[in-house]
């Protein structure tokens, strides 16, 4: 009788031990699994972010390579305004639907890119915020002008870090073949220079040309603004009834990786209207740094 009860007692201890052991194993396994899942999730997130950024960049670069007329076609064919800067296109799928969708390439990761194209730089009234742009030293900003005949004026103000920059303006007016050219040079307010350019007036933070009234004359076509001595920040506003047409295109691409609730990245770029580089400003330009002209 005593042997039997002893056997019964021993069997219960083993069970407890096994249960305890299994509990420990379960806890360890759960912990490892949790860590693995977290790691995979982090890797997936990083990978998705990079994919989305790359896809959005690809969408932007695709349209940056298009000519102005192709961009105009894309705008007017996809719900954008026929002119002006008011309405960009509806989202355009990149690549086009006739091409292999991104999601079917190589690793079956669901990727979609939508591109919107619009125009920028329009000024429709003197109360519109100034068109602001930076011009690197010895580089040019070319403004498309145009409009009906009659006098037009704009407010051009600029500033720079030290040393003070100056602006050199080339205004082309008229229609082919009767183009005319006028040039203007301006130093910042309170800055004297041996270049003999005209001075400007200060509005507290900026130097402004002709007391905030630069006359574009009649039938202006383009205004090339060259920044000398340093880079400049310029601000342009229209005066009176003159409207400044658009100055370039904005291309915004949004990429989504992993479906509706996936990772989203947006890349936005601007592309100005085409212009010729600075050496085309000169009638005679001698490139040599060793031989005098």
């Amino acid at each position, binding site marked *: 009788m005593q042997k039997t009860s002893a056997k019964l007692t021993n069997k219960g201890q083993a069970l407890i031990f096994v249960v305890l052991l299994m509990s420990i194993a379960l806890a360890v396994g759960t912990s490892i699994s949790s860590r693995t899942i977290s790691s995979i999730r982090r890797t997936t997130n990083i990978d998705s972010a990079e994919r989305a*950024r790359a896809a*959005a960049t690809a969408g932007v670069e695709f349209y*940056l390579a298009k*000519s*102005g007329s192709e961009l105009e076609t894309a705008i007017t064919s996809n719900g954008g305004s026929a002119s002006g800067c008011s309405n960009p296109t509806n989202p355009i799928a990149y690549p086009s639907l006739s091409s292999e969708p991104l999601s079917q390439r190589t690793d079956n990761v669901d990727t979609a890119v939508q591109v919107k194209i619009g125009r920028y730089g329009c000024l429709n009234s003197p109360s519109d915020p100034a068109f602001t742009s930076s011009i690197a*030293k*010895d580089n040019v900003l070319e403004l498309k002008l145009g409009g009906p005949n009659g006098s037009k004026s704009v407010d051009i103000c600029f500033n720079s870090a*030290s040393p003070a920059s100056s602006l*050199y303006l*080339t205004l*082309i007016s008229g229609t*082919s*073949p*009767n*183009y*005319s*050219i006028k*040039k203007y*040079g301006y130093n910042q307010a309170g800055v004297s220079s*041996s*270049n*003999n*350019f005209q001075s400007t007036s200060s509005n507290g933070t900026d130097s402004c040309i002709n007391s905030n009234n630069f006359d574009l004359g009649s039938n202006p*076509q*383009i205004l*090339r603004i060259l920044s*000398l001595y340093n880079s400049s920040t310029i601000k342009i506003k229209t005066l009176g009834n003159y409207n400044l047409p658009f100055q*370039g295109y*904005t291309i915004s691409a949004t990429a989504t990786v992993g479906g509706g609730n996936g990772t989203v*990245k*947006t*890349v*936005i*770029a*601007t*592309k*100005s*209207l*085409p*212009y*010729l*580089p*600075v*050496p*085309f*400003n*000169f*009638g*005679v*330009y*001698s*490139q*040599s*740094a*060793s*031989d*005098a*002209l």
Partner: protein
Amino acid sequence: MTKKTAFIIPLTLLIFLFSANLRCSLANDITAPTTTLTQTPTSPDGLNSWYISPVNITLTADDLDSGVKSINWLLDAYLNTQTFNNTLNQILNPSFEDMGSPINKWDLVGNDGSTVFSQDSTSTPPLDAYSAKIYSVTTGWHAFSTESNYSVTSTYQNMTSSIWVKTDTLTGNNAYYSIYLLYDNGNGQVLKQLLATSSSVSGTTAWQKISLNFVVNNTQAVGVYMEAGLNGVGNAWFDGASISSSLTNPSANFAISSNGIHDLSYYSFDNADNEELPHHNTSFKIDTKAPSRFTNFTPTQYGNSHTFIISINVTDTTSGLNTQTAEFQYSVDEDEEGSWGYYTNLTGCNSTFVQGWKSMSTNPSTNGVTQTTMTTPAVDFCDSNWADPKKIRFRIKDVAGNLGQSADFTMNGVWIRVTNGDIFSNKAISFQSPSTVTYTAGAHESISNVTSGNSWFLENYSILSHENYNEWYSKYTTTTAPPNNKLPNISGKFRINSDFTIASNTIPNGLSNVQNMSAVLFVNGDLNINSNYSLHATSGIIFIVKGEISVANNVTSVDGFFITGEEFDTGSGNSQLTLNGGVQADTLVFGRSLNGNQNSSTPAEIFTYQPKYLIVGKNQLGSGYSVSLVSIE
């Protein structure tokens, strides 16, 4: 208690006292720093108190208590500040103001009974009222030392030190100071080791500051101390001793190089926020640029056809012109050696020819004007054979003493006109005869012999960048030949993969009537222009040429915008050349010369800038846009 413990307790106490001293120094420091200025050149190297070279300035500040926190200088209304760390002076009684035996906190070294160590008030010390003096009549080392009041330090610490010293009839091996290290040798003993020695001073000198940076290169470092003294016979004074944990002695260095009058104000703050008052003020007049921009060269015939009164304008915008120094010299046959000078009788070529310069009048003649017109008396160039180059040159000084000399001007020499456009050179502009440009003349160096219609000049401007043939072609690659391998008469981008000659057989019929054409022609070789041609006013061709561009002597009219990284040669004929468009070239050769006296009134080459290329050209070279990445979200 072990030996180590016995050593550690006082060391700990010492560190506590040091930090307490630090707090006390800040609290007790009521004396502002002193800032001194040294400069190179030490005085104006030009005339009339002008500098003709940039001035290098060093501001050095001293504060014997809490240490220098910042040196500040206001240069032409721009405030600059340089801050310093760990400048607390760790020497007690650094200016020798507290009397002791003879000076408090300073030990004596080499006190042999005949050497006199004293606190001195007669030497006009740079800091406060007293200095420490050593009068030695024996050879050997005699010094003041801070060994008993050493500065606590730590291993591998970078430290700086300095002291002011003055000597009188000091012979022997000079006055200097040394920095010693105290270190634990591991056996409870504190030993000393020479770390560094300063430069030395001898003879009779005024007060000067000597400095020394050093590194505590012992792993058992306890502290450092200074021994300042003389090794020899004579007198030496010391003042303003300093040891700090700053990496450098407080000083600021900068250069003033731009031309003009510059006001400089400088002062310092110490770590107790004492401001040095009053601020120091000084000014510098700098003019490194000689008179230049010799323009409006105007010969006026006087009497016979080879006698002229010649005037020219010159400019100096900084110190102004020294109008008494205007001179000229000329040559009636440049090929002859020693031919530059003047005839003693300027209107008589039979007189003696003298090598040298002749004075001339100026208007205005007031010294210091920024622009004047220099005028010669009547000068006879002896004959009208203008094929033999007859030249004249000018020179004048500015008030600062810089001498400016013009280029050589050729009498009846050739010149060019640039209409409706600008002219720019990445080197200098130096035409033989005065040339004209409607708008702006610009150059990386000087500009001579160019008149701008608006008087707009960009002189000494930075070099502009440009693209070469390969860069253009890589952007706008095309292998399309122009129709019939002639000049294009349709819009588009074309390439000729060899030399190309514009002649009667390569000019399409009716080219001048083709309207609204926008073309780019790449020439992968030389371009030779052997025939006149013209384009319709609404059309344009941009020539991008890998080799040279040359214009035949018989050509008088060319149309286009020409780009080459080689030479553009206008030829050497005696007929005028008109180019409608523009030219970008590595070098330009203007070899034409008109017959007889025509050069005096007529340009040999006319470049008429055509604005249509800024509009027409975009149609073909239209990917010249700017792109900016606005954001990534």
